[in-house]
């Protein structure tokens, strides 16, 4: 079975400082992993995805994530936070048959001036 654990429910950073959102996964086979972002009153947007190609995945808005099989982690990072990055972030693993997405509980990112 597949599962995802987001290690922090809330993260608060100052504008211009680095962002780290942590995610660990469990999968019985080579997974596809995703990060989605949900801004208030807006739909879910795909930030990036890993599908067994390069382990360092670059996404939109300057975000990137590194797949580490030995640590079963897929942490999301950004070198410098912007106020517009404040949102809910979901780490997601594909389920059996690749047709179900299994979501983590989410991490709410706050960015302070």
């Amino acid at each position, binding site marked *: 079975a597949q599962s995802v654990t987001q290690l922090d429910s809330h993260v608060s950073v100052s504008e211009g400082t680095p962002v780290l959102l942590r995610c660990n996964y469990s999968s019985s086979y080579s997974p*596809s992993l995703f990060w*989605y972002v949900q801004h208030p009153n*807006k*739909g*879910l*947007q*795909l930030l990036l*995805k890993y599908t067994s190609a390069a382990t360092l995945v670059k996404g939109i808005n300057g975000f990137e994530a590194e797949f580490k099989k030995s640590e079963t982690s897929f942490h999301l990072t950004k070198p410098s936070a912007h106020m517009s990055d404040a949102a809910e972030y*979901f780490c997601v693993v*594909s*389920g059996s*048959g*690749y*047709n*179900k*997405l*299994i*979501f*983590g*509980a*989410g991490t709410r990112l706050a960015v302070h001036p």
Partner: protein
Amino acid sequence: GAGVSQSPSNKVTEKGKDVELRCDPISGHTALYWYRQRLGQGLEFLIYFQGNSAPDKSGLPSDRFSAERTGESVSTLTIQRTQQEDSAVYLCASSFGQQETQYFGPGTRLLVL
């Protein structure tokens, strides 16, 4: 181009009433998914349609929940005899195929009084 659309955007109903939620996928997308997002939580998979294949209903929480899809177009999710615990945001997603990126609609916020 047009994204996934859902209607209504908000629905308030009384306990025991039936509700019907609609999803219009992106044109050409053969796969369609329904998810539920309870307040402060990640998304839960409900049901998956792929072309003319039998749907994967493994995520439906009870027999009060059902969904239909006509061909590769519109889908409706029906909740019969609604309960207060059905209150959530119901999200629809579509993709070109089973293993392709899912694109999400804005959701229907359901409140059962």
